[in-house]
């Protein structure tokens, strides 16, 4: 019973948090006015004139909230996948270097190849990054938890260095764009960006959603999964490719946002258990909620727009420490 209530809360949380988030921001708009505008735009009940509040709600806040939701869902969904297939509760797209790889793909596109697709390059370099991390960790047979994290750190550092080279070479006004975007922010959101993100994350996570129960099997040892009839290498590859697509799209629209993919799956696992059949969808909704919450904080506590990556890192790093301490030797094991 209690578990069902938790499931419902996590499931509807993005709706509630987006609703509240719509009221908040540097420009004060009363909740009543917000609801009025929202209803007017969707159902045409009231006859409102073109007031500035309307543009703020419909063209600034709403696409931004939706974008944050999609990105949050994409990052935590990928976090669940990566933790499952690598049988390692301490990894996420950020730690494995996918975010850094994708960021490099975006940076070279912005800096040198403005005609290319940012998303495509982010995807390609994200895949290269995770492939490298996996190959380095897998020097002999089964991958240990620690070696995977270390190789992720190595790959991440490598791609960040490449990003620095791009920053060094690129012309100054493009540099500003790259630097700002690398810190991770939703301040440039609009409907066009939201549509791109929604499409990329959906294409990435829909197959994963359908295959999510297989993560239970893949999270066992490789030999065990094989004896249960699973083609481990093929399935891992499918999961990696699709979740990298989601991460690359997310990174391409809002820069590097770390820790979400690590924290959210853990929180959900603590609340409702590790069965991926429920864990995956609830991580999507919880990730969306968490990201919308973090972004709301980042845009409303000061008059500046603090990059949301800073907020997630400020909460995520202590959380990682907590997990390490709690898991003790076991967390690092083998």
């Amino acid at each position, binding site marked *: 019973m209690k578990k069902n209530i938790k499931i419902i809360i996590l499931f509807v949380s993005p709706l509630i948090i987006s609703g509240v988030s719509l009221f908040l921001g540097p420009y004060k708009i009363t909740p009543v006015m917000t609801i009025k505008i929202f209803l007017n735009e969707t159902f045409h009940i009231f006859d409102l004139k073109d007031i500035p509040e309307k543009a703020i709600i419909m063209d600034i806040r709403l696409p931004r909230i939706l974008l944050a939701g999609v990105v949050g869902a994409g990052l935590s969904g990928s976090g669940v996948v990566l933790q*499952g297939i690598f*049988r*390692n*509760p301490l990894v996420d797209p950020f730690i494995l270097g996918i975010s850094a790889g994708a960021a490099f793909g975006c940076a070279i596109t912005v800096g040198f190849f403005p005609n290319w697709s940012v998303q495509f390059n982010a995807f390609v370099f994200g895949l290269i990054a995770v492939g490298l991390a996996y190959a380095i960790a897998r020097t002999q047979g089964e991958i240990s938890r620690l070696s995977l994290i270390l190789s992720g750190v190595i790959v991440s550092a490598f791609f960040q260095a490449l990003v620095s080279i791009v920053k060094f070479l690129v012309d100054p006004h493009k540099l500003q764009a790259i630097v700002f975007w690398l810190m991770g922010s939703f301040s440039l959101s609009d409907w066009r960006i939201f549509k791109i993100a929604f499409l990329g994350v959906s294409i990435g996570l829909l*197959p994963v959603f*359908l*295959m*999510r*129960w*297989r993560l*239970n*099997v893949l*999270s*066992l*040892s490789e*030999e*065990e999964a*094989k*004896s*249960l*009839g*699973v*083609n481990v290498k093929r399935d891992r590859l499918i999961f990696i490719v699709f979740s990298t697509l989601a991460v690359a799209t997310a990174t391409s629209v809002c820069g590097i946002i770390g820790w979400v993919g690590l924290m959210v799956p853990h929180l959900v*696992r603590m609340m409702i*258990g*590790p*069965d991926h*059949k429920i864990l995956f969808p609830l991580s999507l909704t919880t990730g969306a909620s968490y990201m919308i919450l973090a972004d709301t904080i980042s845009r409303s506590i000061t008059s500046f727009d603090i990059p949301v990556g800073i907020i997630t890192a400020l909460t995520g790093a202590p959380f990682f420490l907590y997990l390490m301490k709690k898991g003790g030797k076991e967390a690092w094991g083998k």
Partner: protein
Amino acid sequence: MLEIKKLCFRHKGSKEDTLKDIEFSAELGKVTAILGPNGSGKSTLFKCIAGIWKPYKGSICINGKEIDKLSYLERAKIFAVVPQEHEPAFPYSVFDMVLIGRAPYVNFFSSPGLKDYEKAKQALQTLGIYHLKEKSYDKISGGERQLVLIARALAQSAPFMLLDEPVSHLDFRNQIKVLLKIKELAYKNKITALVTIHDPNLASLFADKIVVIKDGRIIGQGKPNHILNEKLIQEVYGIKINIIQNNGFNLICPVLDFLKNKQMGA
């Protein structure tokens, strides 16, 4: 019937065969034990049969058909492997763990259906551990965990069950309990069980047939009472023993020369 014919296996880069001309058969609804000391090659043989490692010579046949070319999926519908109990990366519930046994029957883009839940439930009931279903797999005892893994193999609905040292790390009570369950499954559910084991007494008590391996070679096979004798044990384990008959079972008791001498001296 499972038949192993002239099977040879060699590790990559090694000059010597780990398994040499292994040949034996396991009959339907019977428990066949592969007995041997540590390092004798019984785990290697186990992995070859389970399809994890590939032998370079010889064949594995089921009812006369070779199975070398089967995919993991097809193989999983014939062999259910019970690994040694272990800690998974995530603390799944007992029920979820058993449900994983249905993996070969779940479509690629879907989750287990009602029939799969029913099979998992039946498997838990057959092993008498249905009351544990909500418990976390990492919070139950070693013996219970082994039973959960056997239930998972049962849910896998495969005619052959391969059990890798199912009792070597359990206490005496759980050893007997788990082996009894395996025997019961073989008889009642017509499952052909192949068990690796290193305790000759447990093999004698629970197996219908024993295959004795040393240094990658079979040095004896047959009914426990026929093959367990002083000479064979001396050859395999290098210790002197006496055979004791009890309730129709041949049991082994080591000869403790040292104690004997002491008593004589006193």
